[in-house]
């Protein structure tokens, strides 16, 4: 007999996600994914200055902060025919690289690790053994017996205090945890190190964009100016800091993230290398241009689609083709003027709320009807997985040497076949390998920026189309970015210098969406089918797979005159 289990909230993600599963004899037989929050940002953008859009859509997400802003300036530039200076492209690449590194490291340690690492088991570890293992897998200097003894003591005291804070009610002791205590202890130590380290690499955003989260972007270039003879601009000191931040990042990724990933994967590969594969279609828009954004063949990260896990063929993406990318609202709380079974290309897209679900508080959603604030996008009618696994597969299938090298050496190290990539663990590993590639690319972009400046090119802005007087009466544009979580696209229609329509088709929309009108599941729902669940009341296996996608729900949902009396000061409260 089927048992229906609700997991809401799914934590350690961005935003509000609800998953309901059906379990039969210890195995998931059906799954439903629902985004439960909406803000209507697309509606808010109508009538505004297109040059301001980056700031609005930037606030779609503060975790993958900057990625929507980058997409937005590309979208407006595409509509108005603006090419940005080479330095602006390099600075944008560096900012996006910094985001990838920070976001992926934080995901692995802070958002995902507790699905694999048993914090309480770490208390039983022998610090000598932990030190010996750590030293055998990495030259990272924080690996002494004393170091691990202190970390263990710190956690022991924490647990004994009775105030467990963010670790309260975790799934400690669950049978699905497989790591020996010493590896758990190493991972706990690196959890703390990653939390402290992540705030460093984002300084790349602060230097070029003034702040993080939500750094500043600019249509036509980047807001910062380069002047190596001036204190108030990007000069040698600022550039040196950027260089050091990326070098330190590479060290952390090579010496901490990758060795931990391989160590943890080696204990889970036999089962989780075959669970959670889900869909068999993968899509990447590609990114990190080396010769202008309009030349996708120059991208460090190639563009394309893989169908049915056939790695011998890459299908071409044309985002402006009205038949390729379409969004459906058959099972989403919106309505379309031409009927909800219609698929609309985002240029024709509509965002009109139509909540038909139960009035809160509610126990269950009705899955025979609309059940999510996430729309359902399709590529030529196919559901697509997007994200690091898709990107690594597209890079691998495209024959890129750097991709082949990291993928094949990892498969050899773990002694697993290529098919192991199509899994929960494969998704998690792909994210780490991509971070490694990103560190190398960033150092290359950094060197190019230095070379340009040395050769006298300091331009960071193309002002030719800044003034709205220079714009056509109407224009349409598309901006595509590979966000850390996957293929991201914005679509704009400009009429009379104002935004007439703005639509976002974001990574988590592809992955977390409800079923399409044909009843086909999207990536989250499909990936859960067949997953064994030891105890349905304790959803560890479910969040393991869901977290492997790195959900970002605020992205996915489409996004004073004070009368009240305020208490100005209270001596005690």
């Amino acid at each position, binding site marked *: 007999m089927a048992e229906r289990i609700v997991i809401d909230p799914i934590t350690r993600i961005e935003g509000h996600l609800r998953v309901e599963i059906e379990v039969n004899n210890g195995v998931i037989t059906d799954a439903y994914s629902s985004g439960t929050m909406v803000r209507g940002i697309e509606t808010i953008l109508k009538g505004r200055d297109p040059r301001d859009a980056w700031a609005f859509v930037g606030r779609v997400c503060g975790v993958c902060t900057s990625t929507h802003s980058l997409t937005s300036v590309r979208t407006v530039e595409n509509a108005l025919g603006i090419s940005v200076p080479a330095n602006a492209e390099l600075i944008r690449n560096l900012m996006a690289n910094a985001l990838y590194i920070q976001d992926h490291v934080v995901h692995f340690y802070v958002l995902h690790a507790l699905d694999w690492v048993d914090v309480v088991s770490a208390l039983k570890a022998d610090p000598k053994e932990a030190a010996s293992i750590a030293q055998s897998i990495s030259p990272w200097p924080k690996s002494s017996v004393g170091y691990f003894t202190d970390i263990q003591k710190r956690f022991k005291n924490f647990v004994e205090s009775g105030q467990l804070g963010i670790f309260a009610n975790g799934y400690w002791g669950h049978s699905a945890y497989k790591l020996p205590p010493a590896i758990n202890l190493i991972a706990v130590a690196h959890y703390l190190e990653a939390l402290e380290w992540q705030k460093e690499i984002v300084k790349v955003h602060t230097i070029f964009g003034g702040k993080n989260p939500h750094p500043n972007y600019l249509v036509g270039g980047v807001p910062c100016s380069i002047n190596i003879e001036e204190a108030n601009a990007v000069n040698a000191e600022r550039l040196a800091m950027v260089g050091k931040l990326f070098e330190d990042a590479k060290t952390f990724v090579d010496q901490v993230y990758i060795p931990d990933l391989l160590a943890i994967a080696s204990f889970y590969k036999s089962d989780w290398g075959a669970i959670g594969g889900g869909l068999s279609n993968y899509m990447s828009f590609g990114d990190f241009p080396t010769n202008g954004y309009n030349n996708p063949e120059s991208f460090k990260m190639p563009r394309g689609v893989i169908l049915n896990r056939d790695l011998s063929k890459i299908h071409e993406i044309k985002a402006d083709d009205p038949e390729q990318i379409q969004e459906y609202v058959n099972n989403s709380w919106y309505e379309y003027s031409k009927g909800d079974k219609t698929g609309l290309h985002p240029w024709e897209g509509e965002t009109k709320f139509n909540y038909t679900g139960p009035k809160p508080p509610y126990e269950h959603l009705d899955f025979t009807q609309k059940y999510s604030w996430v729309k359902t996008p399709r590529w030529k009618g196919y559901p697509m997985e997007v994200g690091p696994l898709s990107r690594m597969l597209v890079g691998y299938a495209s024959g890129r040497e750097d991709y082949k090298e990291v993928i094949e050496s990892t498969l050899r190290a773990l002694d697993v076949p290529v098919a192991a990539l199509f899994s929960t663990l494969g998704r998690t590993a792909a994210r780490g390998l991509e971070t490694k590639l990103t560190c190398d690319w960033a150092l290359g972009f950094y060197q190019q920026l230095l070379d340009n400046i040395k050769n006298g090119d300091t331009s*960071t802005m193309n002002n030719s189309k800044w003034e709205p007087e220079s714009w056509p009466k109407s224009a349409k544009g598309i901006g595509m970015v590979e966000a850390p979580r996957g293929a991201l696209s914005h679509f704009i229609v400009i009429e009379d210098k104002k935004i007439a329509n703005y639509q976002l088709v974001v990574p988590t929309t592809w992955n977390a969406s409800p079923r399409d009108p044909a009843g086909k599941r999207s990536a989250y729902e499909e990936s859960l089918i067949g997953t064994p669940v030891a105890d349905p009341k304790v959803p560890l296996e479910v969040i393991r797979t869901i977290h492997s996608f790195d959900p970002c729900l605020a992205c996915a949902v489409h996004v004073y005159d004070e009368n009240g009396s305020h208490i100005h000061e209270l001596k005690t409260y």
Partner: protein
Amino acid sequence: MENKQPSFYEEVKKDGISRKDFLKFCATTAALLGLESSSIGQIVKALETKPRLPVIWFHFQECTCCSESFIRASHPIVANIVLDKISLDYQETLMAASGAQAEDAYKAVMAKFPGEYIVMVEGSIPTENEAYCCIGGRSAKQILEEAVANCKAVVAWGNCASAGCVQAASPNPTGAKPVHKVISGKPVINVQGCPPIADVMAGVVVHLLTFDRIPQLDELSRPKAFYSRRVHDTCYRRANFDAGLFVESFDDEGAKRGYCLYKMGCKGPVTYNSCGIIKWNDGISYPIQSGHPCIGCSEAGFWDNGPFYQHLPSIEGFGIETTADKIGLGLGVATVVGVAAHAVVTNVRKHREITNAPETTEVETPKDK
């Protein structure tokens, strides 16, 4: 499990933090809060003896930038200890448990520590239809009202919880409202910004921990320690403004020399925040320093005060000899072409606060060109 509630100092001592480092932390904290050195002793004593505060941190209509900013707090001791040691019992971005186990965590705090816990809120609350934000099948409003009933105080993180932020921008399709418009009867501290500066967030938490009271607030309930100065008044480019040196277009010669961004639409003259003082991400920079005008993200309704790059009228006939305050205030008013009227009033009031000027201060309004 028995609840012994160790003090902050007991916690850090167990973590291997030396007394010397602990005292250094207290001194840094005092400096961060702008306190006299005589207050250091008070901080030391408070952190030595206070039990950890239970905290429930909710996410409603938001983007998680406030959580992300919070974990960027710059001193390691703040990131590693204050963040964990406040006993952050419910925080969806960081907590291990999901689903029912997660909900049990905050319910346990409410049951165990009535009147003692702090509710921190990231995000606005939809009022057009409560189903626009649901967690565990309950609406944001239902969850918030229940949790606030027995809390000690509420911290509203960022512009969403303080003023509604981007989702409350016209036409506010979901009826998004800030915390203080949804609940009543509890003190609400609005820690403004999109997001607030990491060290400001840490500073507010330390203030609550240390002094067992909420900080002094301005009339928009923002802590005065961090929101009583205009970005314009603390901007390192202010001298260029006073000298009439402006960026006329992005990346022009003026931009390459760090001239004032006023003509590019800078909202520094009507924005109260610590960007020019504390700066961002360990004091590295802030928007103006990196070449972009301030967009005013710590002010209510800033999304509808644009467009962001609106060219402001050229101001003729002032130079370094004119007093900076006069020009600053006058221009503040000029900036408000298209800005809500209450901002003007706020400027005049703030002018008096800063200068201790009498109520009758006259405000110059330059001609609109």
